[in-house]
């Protein structure tokens, strides 16, 4: 019986990890893409230059597909708290429920309500109102991130609650304290920048691909240039934001940082930064470690000799899995550094007026196309696995959070999710790649090739056409 229960929990965790990972790929893209579209339409309205209108139409087709996949995979998440984590939901519902309800009320409806107009309405409502619709969708994606990250952050750094006699978490007298819990501002900034970077590198790769084939394509040049500005500015900002986030985590969730750093032992006189190595939880040491002495103390405490506690100070029962966190962290940071490199490289190319000429830069940017998605997932693995063995850090254990379900029920649903997601979203991603493969044209039309919805329900081209000349 005990064994079966353990299986049920492992399966439920696998299912949540699988569905949320797949889901987050889409918002990570659509948050950035919605803002990108708003900028493009704004620039078009301001300058009247056709290249912006063309790019708007080009990326709107992609956005529509991404958004649809984000919506349907997101609905799954809102149910899964209940289907698979019912004890957690019962206990934490009074605190996190209202925040999630605010997400629905202030974000989901806003996005959904204006999406139809954004996709199909330009000749019905006029340019200005259409721009408002685009802005509303972009703002909606931001508000959505705000609330759901507040919920996640509260689970990481729970404050402002009392525990009632029936075991429920009760909100204290200040919602402000709950919403702006200690890790929230850092996580919000880090995640939003990550979404912008993800989009920038995806857009940059598409631009690079088309530049490699035709350096003179104005759409490809413009999108590559815009993406590389984002890379050059946002990637370094993200490094700074990540550093602040790490320091905040050290303060509130030290065990997570110990796992990230691979610090099994405490270091009273400055801790080394382990660049690579293989964490060995049995021997409680990192094998084959390549390390920089005292550098970890420098990064985390801004002092070479600052003492840093290790996992030896954490009770075994409260220790997160070290290997996964350690590796995921290195993947994220490594990709982040590669992003900074591309950004700097592009600045150099721009300064020498070679931005559209240096094909090695284009090849590198193309290779980095999926980097944002991988880095974002790796980052979530760090923070979520690093929170284990708790759902609400330090207060509610994962093993005490799951639904009273039989293991076979969860096994079947997990199998169904895996099959359906790979089939459906696999096809969807394939369609996205096909759309991206097509070069942006001088008269980019929603009609040609594969029309969005059907021929003509997108009257956008008719109106946009006039300005694109």
């Amino acid at each position, binding site marked *: 019986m005990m064994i079966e229960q353990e299986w049920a929990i492992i399966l439920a965790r696998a299912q949540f990890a699988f569905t949320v990972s797949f889901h987050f790929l889409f918002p990570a893209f659509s948050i950035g893409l919605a803002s990108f579209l708003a900028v493009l339409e704004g620039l078009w309205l301001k300058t009247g230059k056709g290249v912006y209108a063309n790019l708007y139409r080009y990326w709107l087709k992609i956005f529509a597909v991404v958004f649809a996949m984000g919506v*349907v995979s997101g609905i799954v998440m809102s149910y899964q708290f209940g*289907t698979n984590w019912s004890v957690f939901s019962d206990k934490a519902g009074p605190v996190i429920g209202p925040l999630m309800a605010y997400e*629905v009320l202030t974000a989901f409806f806003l996005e959904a309500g204006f999406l139809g107009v954004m996709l199909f309405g330009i000749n019905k409502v006029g340019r200005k109102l259409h721009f408002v619709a685009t802005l509303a969708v972009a703002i909606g994606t931001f508000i959505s991130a705000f609330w759901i990250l507040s919920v996640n952050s509260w689970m990481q750094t729970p404050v402002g609650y009392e525990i009632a006699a029936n075991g429920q978490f009760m909100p204290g007298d200040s919602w402000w304290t709950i919403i702006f819990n200690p890790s929230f501002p850092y996580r919000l900034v880090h995640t939003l920048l990550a979404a912008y970077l993800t989009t920038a590198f995806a857009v940059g790769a598409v631009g690079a691909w088309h530049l490699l084939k035709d350096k003179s394509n104005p759409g490809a040049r413009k999108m590559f240039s815009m993406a590389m500005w984002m890379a050059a500015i946002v990637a370094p900002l993200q490094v700074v934001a990540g550093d602040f986030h790490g320091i905040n985590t050290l303060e509130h969730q030290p065990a997570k940082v110990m796992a990230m750093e691979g610090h099994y032992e405490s270091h009273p006189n400055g801790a080394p930064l382990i660049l690579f190595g293989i964490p060995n939880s049995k021997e409680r040491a990192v094998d084959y470690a390549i390390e920089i002495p005292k550098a970890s103390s420098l990064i985390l405490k801004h002092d070479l000799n600052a003492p840093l506690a290790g996992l030896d100070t954490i009770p075994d029962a409260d220790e997160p899995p070290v290997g996964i966190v350690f590796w995921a962290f290195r993947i994220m940071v490594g990709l982040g550094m590669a992003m900074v490199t591309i950004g700097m490289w592009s600045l150099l190319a721009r300064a020498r007026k070679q931005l559209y000429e240096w094909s090695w830069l284009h090849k590198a940017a193309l290779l980095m196309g999926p980097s944002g998605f991988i880095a974002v997932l790796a980052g979530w693995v760090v923070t979520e696995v690093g929170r284990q063995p708790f759902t609400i850090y330090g207060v509610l254990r994962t093993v005490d959070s799951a*639904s009273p379900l039989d293991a076979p029920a969860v096994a079947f649903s997990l199998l169904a999710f895996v099959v359906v997601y790979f089939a459906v979203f696999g096809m969807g991603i394939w369609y996205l790649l096909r759309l991206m493969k097509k070069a942006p044209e001088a008269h980019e039309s929603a009609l040609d090739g594969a029309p969005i919805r059907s021929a003509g329900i997108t009257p956008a081209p008719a109106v946009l056409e006039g300005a694109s000349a």
Partner: protein
Amino acid sequence: MIDLTVIWASIIGFAIIAYVVMDGFDLGIGILFPFFKVGKDRDTAMNSIAPVWDGNETWLVMGVGGLLAAFPLAYAIILPALYAPMIAMLLGLVFRGVAFEFRWRDPAHRELWDRAFTLGSFIATFAQGIALGALLQGITVEGRSYAGGWWEWLSPFSILTGFGLVVGYALLGACWLNWKTEGALQRQAVTYAGRLGISLLLMIGLISLATLTLEAQYYLRWLSYPGVLATAIVPIATIAVTFLFYRSLRQTKDAQPFFWALALFGLCLIGLGISIWPNVIPARVTIWEAAAPHRSQVFMLIGASIMVPIIVAYTAWSYWVFRGKVGHDGYH
């Protein structure tokens, strides 16, 4: 007695009504989809709902999100109890949701995505109907959690409610197409609406009678004297509305049959309310037992009272933008 808990129960009730009103017809179109001619007719049917389906489905998220926030105990008991139908519904919604985009993106596989659209819509609807039936027939609760097995939801009654909802949504879909389309497709929709209307009435009758046998509470609510004088209004009104529905259909009205069909749904929901009030898990847990603490209710009520009117306003605007008949190449 009106307190915050009652207000929240009403808000969730409103979300459920809004969901049925708005997503019912677009699921219904999915169910009827294979009966429409490939090409122009299917494109038109799809286009009539393409700009609004996403907003419609948001009410489903609102319903379940609101349940978590306002009645966390109910959320925590109901979802594991309905595990299989809920997962099936979610997967169904995945299929039909992406089909809106994918069928245009991949003409070579349009037939495949059209089938996914139908299958997904049917499964989602059927699962919702089963969920309703499973709730009504009673679920096993111990302490603060669900204590039944993972097949408890399955019974002849829940299968009946599953089919009942399929018929009902299909009727809404047919009425929507009668309103929004022209020509052969509209005539086809009218024919379907005529057949589905009588089928739905039959289903409502069957389900109502079966419901009375499920719990003593339902029986007493409906049939004990003098309450029966009030409750009898519901079946009488149902017959009257059915009559009005057929009259409007015969007079070849565009919009009216849709609203009469919605009225039928409204009466069913009133009937549901009469059966289960004041429970959130029928015959098991009352809304007060499941309610979130006062502070959570107040905080959300502030948000809901500001946001819900705004949402209704811009949703209405969005429908207004896409008003009128839809041609096969979009709204004109």
